[in-house]
Each structure stands twice: as structure tokens, then as C-alpha cells.
């Protein structure tokens, strides 16, 4: 499990308008690029001082590459990051206000507390 890296992906995409669009249009390619080029960059350090050890598990990579937010919830990604980014990705495709958010909730409807642990 690399929940930290899952969260780092969601966080890094969510704060960059160009990456939000890139991830919406090409999820698999964006995940592949990000894992190769960005996953090990420490956000407050020069690129040369990057980490050497961060990778997704196969399940995490596939969930990200398929925009599978139910699976990402189940893998323990941070609920706030997950919701915020996915609103940015898909709210625009729904006519009614909050319709995407309500569908998101319904698709997780089989879950009751305790939810998957989000601790990193």
C-alpha cells in the first residue's frame, strides 16, 4: 500500500489546472507520466534531490488510470482530496447542481462506518 503516493497524485493534479484537464482527457497516460517523472519529486526540494523509492501498487495504478473513485476510496485515499479532484473532473458533465456529488455518494452506498483507514 502506498496511500501517501495516491494522495500525492490527487494533490498534485488537483492544484494544477493543466494537469486536471490532462488527467480528465488521458487518465492512463497521465498516471504513467506522473509516476515516471513526478512521483519522487519532493515538493519543497529541488528536482535533483528527489526520492528514489516511491511507486504505486498495481491496484492503485489501475484505479487511478480508470478514474475509479470507489476503488480509490477503498484503497484509503484521502476522502477530501478524492472528492475535490473528482468534482473538478466530472461535475461539468452533469446538468443539475450537486448531481455528480450525489452519484459519488450513491456509488459508495454499500459502505458504512468504519470506512477504509486514510492514515498515512
Amino acid at each position: 500500500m502506498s496511500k501517501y503516493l495516491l494522495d500525492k497524485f490527487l494533490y498534485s493534479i488537483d492544484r494544477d489546472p493543466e494537469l486536471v484537464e490532462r488527467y480528465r482527457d488521458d487518465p492512463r497516460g497521465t498516471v504513467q507520466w506522473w509516476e515516471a517523472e513526478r512521483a519522487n519529486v519532493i515538493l519543497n526540494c529541488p528536482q535533483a534531490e528527489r526520492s528514489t523509492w516511491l511507486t504505486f501498487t498495481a491496484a492503485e495504478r489501475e484505479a487511478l488510470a480508470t478514474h475509479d473513485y470507489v476503488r480509490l476510496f477503498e484503497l484509503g485515499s484521502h476522502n477530501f482530496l478524492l472528492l475535490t479532484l473528482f468534482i473538478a473532473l466530472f461535475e461539468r458533465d452533469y446538468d443539475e447542481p450537486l448531481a455528480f456529488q450525489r452519484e459519488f455518494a450513491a456509488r459508495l452506498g454499500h459502505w458504512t462506518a468504519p470506512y477504509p483507514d486514510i492514515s498515512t
Partner: protein
Amino acid sequence: MAQVVAVIASTHHPFYYKAAASSGDDRPPFADEWVAKIEAFRQTLTRARPDVLVMVGSDHFHQLWLDNMPQFLIGKAPFYDANFYNEEREFGLPRMFVHGHEELSAYLLREGMDAGFDLAFSNELRIDHSITCPLITLRPQADLPIVPIYTNIFAPPLPQPKRFVELGKTIRRLVESWPSDQRVAIIGTGHLSLELGGPRQFGPHGPDPEFDRQAVEWIATGDLASALAQVSLDSLWLPGNATHGFMDFMLMMGVAGENAKADHVDSLDLFHTMEAYFTWYPKAAA
């Protein structure tokens, strides 16, 4: 010594700015009632005539990140830019710019550490909607210097609820010992029951109305003993997966004091969350 002229605790709802500014078909049916309640709440700060605002909130993964996460942090900067791209995108919040009060920041940092809180600090902090929402509701002209205090209610492992209460009590004591003639309002925002990114999000009301009713009673009566007896890091998952923001209310109960009855109490049942507003006027304040 400085005087605490108001203690204010509320929820922070990022949609208020947009709802209040909307008109015609875009204006939600609850907007008028919401605006009326906020304007009454705003008066409770205005009448206290503060010179400086100490503002307690929590960064929502904007500047503070999991590679270096402080539990409690005080901003010590002459200025604060405010709000982020994703808050503009999702909530329509405006970019803002606020003056800081470095002298009070420095005092709270030094004295806070000497009082047993190893506080983190930031000399360049961009504040987010946990602090700009109460500015928009309570002081929209944003003309007073602030001291931002961030708590971690977001990224486990979190400090215990009792530490939030103790920090609140400490902030109150320190502000009242600050050698200054300034009038200080201490403002903090958090949440009642709240679900974000989970199956109970965006329902017709908050995910746990019974928790909300109980919480409003605890806050309004300053019942710290009951709140501390019934709230734990584990129990806060149950009313909704973002309910740890209630610990910022507990911090503010610590600022207000044990069994301190709030002078202004109001609430509003909105879709997906209950909004709640509290003001205390410390007895010595004139």
C-alpha cells in the same frame, strides 16, 4: 494588557460567498435566510470594535502537505495572500490579501512554546477558506490585521481533542497577558457533523442531526466536560468522515472558558450540513 473583546466560533461554509452574491434564478431558496443570519452574526463582531483578529482554522491540503505536516502552526508574516485556485474553481471564492500582526504572532509563538506547545510557524503563509470564510462573513472589508493559527484536523494522526481545548485555553490566557492596549477578537471555525468524499455526503441535511443538536448545546453552554467525555478521535469518525473539524469548535470552547454561556447562538439547517454561529463577550470587555 490586551483585552479579549469577543470570542467567536462558527462553521465555515465555502458556498456562502457565492450564495450571498447570487441573484435571479441562480439564487438558492435558502440564501435570504442565510444572509440575514450572517448579517446578525457580523454585528456581534462589529460591536466589539476589535483592533486585531486571531483566527483559528485548518489548511485543507493547500500549502501544508503530508511530507511535512505540522499539528499546530502560527503564521508570522506581515501579509497573507489568500485563497487558492481550487477554491476559486469549486466555490467561486475571490483572491484576497490581508495584513498580519507580526508582534502578536511572535508573542503567541514564544509564550506558547514556553507554555508547553511546540508550535510550528510560517513566515510565508497563503491562507485558505477556513480563514477567509469567516473574514467574508464577519469582516468582509478585511481591514484588520490577523494572526492565523492552523490546526491539523485533516491528516491523521491528529492531536487529541483535549489538546485542542488546552491550546484554546492557552491562547486566551496569552492574549490577555500580551502587553498591549489592543482589542483582540479570537475567531475560530470548524464543523459539526460533516461527510466529504463518502456515502453520506450532500444529503438533505448534515449526516448526523443528533450529533449536531448535542454539539450546539455543548458549545452554547460551554459544556467542555461533556464534550471531552463523549468525543474521541475514534468517535468523531461516526457522525461523518470530516467531523474532526469539530475539534476546532472544542478549541474555541477552550478560548471561551469552562461553562461559558454564549451570548449569541444561531444555526441554520442547510443541505448537507448544519451551520452554527456563536459569540461570547468576555465579562471584562467594555
